[in-house]
């Protein structure tokens, strides 16, 4: 892995950090992120930008190989050729437990179908559903 602080010209230094580990530390040409107001891409020379992330998929290229990482929401800081993602949890595609994610989606869907939007538990299940979908999308591509 390239050192994130010394990304070559025309590249972005990408770090994906969770409270319990560093998930990625690499140099990429572009990264797409699930921003709270919609997905967006960052390339070298992107303006300084801070946004919160919703649960979703982070995609980037590592040495020509497409990579996907599921994040459960977080915050991203884009400045001076660096992209730092701070996520509560982050899992590269190969680490996603697909069966578990599918079960989580099913249980969240059945819970939500029994609730109304105004229910106090709605937001919690909706967030669970979003995280499950993010994981499934990451694993299945």
């Amino acid at each position: 892995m390239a050192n994130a602080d010394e990304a070559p010209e025309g590249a972005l230094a990408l770090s994906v950090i969770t409270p319990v580990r560093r998930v990625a530390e690499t140099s990429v040409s572009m990264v797409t992120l699930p921003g709270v107001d919609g997905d967006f891409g960052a390339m070298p020379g992107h303006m300084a930008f801070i946004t919160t992330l919703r649960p979703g998929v982070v995609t980037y290229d590592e040495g020509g190989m497409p990579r996907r990482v599921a994040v459960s929401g977080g915050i991203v800081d884009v400045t001076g050729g660096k992209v730092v993602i701070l996520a509560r949890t982050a899992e590269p595609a190969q680490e996603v437990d697909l069966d578990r994610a599918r079960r989580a989606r099913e249980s969240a869907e059945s819970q939500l179908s029994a609730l109304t939007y105004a229910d106090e538990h709605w937001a919690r299940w909706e967030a669970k559903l979003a995280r499950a979908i993010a994981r499934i999308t990451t694993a299945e591509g």
Partner: protein
Amino acid sequence: MAARSLKDIKRRIRSVKNTQQITKAMKLVSAAKLRRAQEAVETSRPYAEKMRELLEGIAMRSPPGCHPLLARREVKKILVILFSGDKGLCGPFNSQIIRAAAQLIRRNQGREVSLLVVGKRGNDFFRKRETPILGVFLDYSKRVGYTLAEEIAGKARERFLAEEADVVYLVYNRFKNVVVQEATALPLLPVDAPSREEDEGPPPDLVDYEYEPSMEAALDDIVNRYVVSQIYRALVESAASEHGARMTAMDAATKNAKEMIESLTLEYNRARQAAITKELIEVVTGADALEG
């Protein structure tokens, strides 16, 4: 030394040996757990540091009082979050941190102090005293993790925002190394962040950031995540301290047991020797008497 029968000494040696086996096993278990806890302390750092950096960056661009968790009020009510252990046999770990909390409470006489207690030991001590306990987290050692930190953060935030607490402290054993754990009282809320003076613009050397959805929303997210990361840090440092303290204590206990076994063995051999000598004397005097 009172003369003890051979049987008694033997029994005693066996019992000390059993104890030694237990302390030795506990020491090994603690060493393994300590290694994991130390790793958790290390790996939590990059996230917490970056969060702090973002927090400072955004707070410097914001007016004072830009977020309710940054609000400084006159201190009348204090919430202390105490991190103790569920179990004993770990040297001064529990007593040290309980003493630090008790001192903090004493120093704030005249103010309303309440407690959130993590761990059974702290709860055992304070539930018999007058400082009210608002919540306890018992039997937590298997759930040391981010979810627990979020739970604690939720309670602290609730109290602070309801103005039931003007300051929130984290009182925990900071892990310096295996033998040294330092009792620490760290202010958690209000979040200590540099803020821009009322009339100044943002410092000119700062990068001009775009925020989505807004600076306020980003700040809110960052502040809340920062608070959780601070609590998580206290949790993992306290866990590392506990394992370190237990390892040290159990190492000392194992050594003491070894010394005790040695001195008991010596006593046993002496007693055995004395018994033999006594028997010999009896035989000899018996023979003398017959001859005489």
